[in-house]
């Protein structure tokens, strides 16, 4: 047991603890129902560009960031390798499944390739976590970043499995029951279902013994050991769960783009996940999805916006960076924190209000 737990990344305690135990928190929140209905009827409202490029992409990135939120918000462990785990899972779908690179892909049907990819990616993330939990705070960040960077360079240089810098192209997507599940509308619902499943799983787990104990580990690992908990085993288990969530999102990602290449697992992309989670807020599972929506909207539209102002469109990252700075400066729990304080100032809410929810 290290005594250095004071140096760990501390998370402002979430208001989640104020909600009554054992109840589903969303059921009585009308905003959550409205958002749920909008998400369900989205294909009637949005054209295919918005459906896939904005909303499906948001949900996929949000799910990866959700896995980071789970580790950082509940466990106090900032892992920069969550995108790497998703990317590993995506690569495994391409390697075991069907793609245009017939010399690499083994041609398994999707229902065999996907469980294989999920298993391997979860094992990969758990091993990475087992390394990372020996450290605290900034060293956890460094180790997980090193794993992410190593994987990026490895995929670039390995041709036998990862096909070097060109990656694996034209990855097959599932067709069954007469449905092309990569067609825009079915794919949107697949993504929505997976994201909702992960969201509710994290939400549910936060009040289950495993999740509560993880929050105990975040608050005071030494005391957790003095209550009979094996703190490191708990942390590794948290990495395993988070890896599974990230791996699910990785499968969706490779189906979304139908290809995977080192560019998708770059160090920059790993850091984007951190930005998404922090901008949205890492105290609650909804935060990463809000962060992802902001990120995707900026990434998609900031370019046109900047060009219209007569600036270089490639500077959209500048906008994201400035937004990131503003958020961490004014609100250490992200947009959901800002939103909540605004609601409180409006005097609209009871102390337990958790306004502005999206599910999924």
């Amino acid at each position: 047991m290290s005594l250095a737990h004071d140096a760990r990344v501390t998370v402002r305690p979430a208001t989640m603890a104020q909600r009554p135990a054992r109840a589903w928190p969303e059921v009585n929140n009308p905003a959550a129902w409205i958002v749920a209905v909008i998400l369900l009827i989205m294909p009637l409202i949005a054209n295919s560009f918005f459906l896939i490029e904005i909303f499906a992409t948001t949900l996929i990135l949000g799910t990866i960031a959700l896995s980071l939120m789970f580790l950082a918000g509940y466990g106090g462990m900032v892992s920069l390798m969550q995108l790497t785990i998703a990317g590993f899972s995506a690569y495994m779908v391409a390697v075991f499944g069907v793609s245009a690179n017939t010399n690499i892909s083994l041609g398994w049907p999707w229902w065999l390739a996907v469980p294989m990819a999920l298993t391997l990616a979860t094992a990969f993330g758990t091993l990475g976590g087992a390394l990372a939990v020996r450290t605290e705070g900034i060293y956890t960040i460094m180790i997980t970043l090193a794993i992410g960077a190593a994987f990026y360079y490895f995929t670039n240089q390995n041709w036998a499995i990862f096909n070097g810098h060109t990656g694996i192209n034209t990855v097959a997507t599932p067709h069954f029951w007469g449905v092309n599940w990569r067609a825009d509308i079915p794919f949107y619902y697949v993504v929505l279902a997976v994201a909702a499943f992960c969201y509710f799983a994290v939400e549910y787990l936060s009040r289950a013994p495993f999740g509560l104990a993880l929050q105990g580990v975040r608050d005071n690992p030494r005391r957790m050991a003095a209550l009979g908990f094996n703190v490191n085993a708990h942390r590794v288990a948290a990495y395993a769960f988070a890896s599974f969530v990230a791996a699910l999102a990785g499968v969706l990602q490779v189906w979304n783009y139908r290809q995977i290449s080192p560019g998708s697992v770059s160090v920059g992309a790993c850091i984007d996940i951190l930005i998404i989670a922090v901008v949205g807020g890492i105290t609650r599972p909804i935060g990463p999805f809000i962060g992802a929506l902001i990120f995707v909207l900026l990434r998609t539209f900031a370019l046109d916006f900047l060009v219209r102002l007569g600036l270089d469109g490639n500077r959209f990252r500048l906008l994201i960076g400035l937004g990131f700075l503003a958020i961490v400066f004014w609100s250490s729990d992200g947009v959901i924190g800002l939103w909540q304080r605004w609601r409180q100032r409006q005097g609209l809410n009871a102390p337990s209000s958790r306004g502005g929810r999206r599910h999924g």
Partner: protein
Amino acid sequence: MDSVAHRLSAVGAAAALELRGVTRMFGALAALTDVTITVRPGERRAVLGSNGAGKTTLFNCITGDFPPSSGTIRFFGEDVTHFPPYERIRRGLRRTYQISALFPGLTVQDNVYLACRGVSRGRFSFLRPGQNDALMHAADNLVQAVHLAAVKDQRVAELAHGQQRQLEIALALAGAPRFVLFDEPAAGLSPTERAELIEILTSLPAHIGYIIIEHDMDVALRVVESVTMMHNGRVFKEGLPQEIQSDPEVQELYLGGGHE
């Protein structure tokens, strides 16, 4: 006839806690030197000594927060010297901390629930506790026992100091404790709260032994039957409370200087 030495000779392998030659170094500094202490099951003992005498380090070695540099520690006959803290806790050892070590982001109820869960199965359970969960009831009872039922849904960060100290004790009494280490439980408590603390300690079931570190003699000597006096990391004296209180050397050391 009832001297500490006499009792110790009769204890043998059944001692609740048996330290033999425990030494703990911090670099070149010896925080504990050759400490040998035996406590029988159900015995209640105070450890006295000025600041820096090694009292809290002694606790940290017993629980495994720091492993001892040398020596052996037996808990109910079992050599636990190299066990991680959680293995000792699961065998019935408990402790409180001098500076409250709680989970500020969680509610009082959740703090106590975690303590109950830590010494039972299902620490990794993915299922939320149901309405009739036995550990939830155990947690409810503990919360009541330390007079915190009124604030059980409040976050610990919002509690008053005295309430945090009471919660600190509740966490140490979860499950089936066999031996408890109390590290200055009365620190910063009001006179009323001290009386409540004494009541909690004296009403513990007789089979639960404890060691208490306490500067307040009024509290310490009312709740123990034996005293170990430490000085500069060594055991200086052992005896009954009245022997220690009337010992001239102890009076000079402890009551004369160094006491905060």
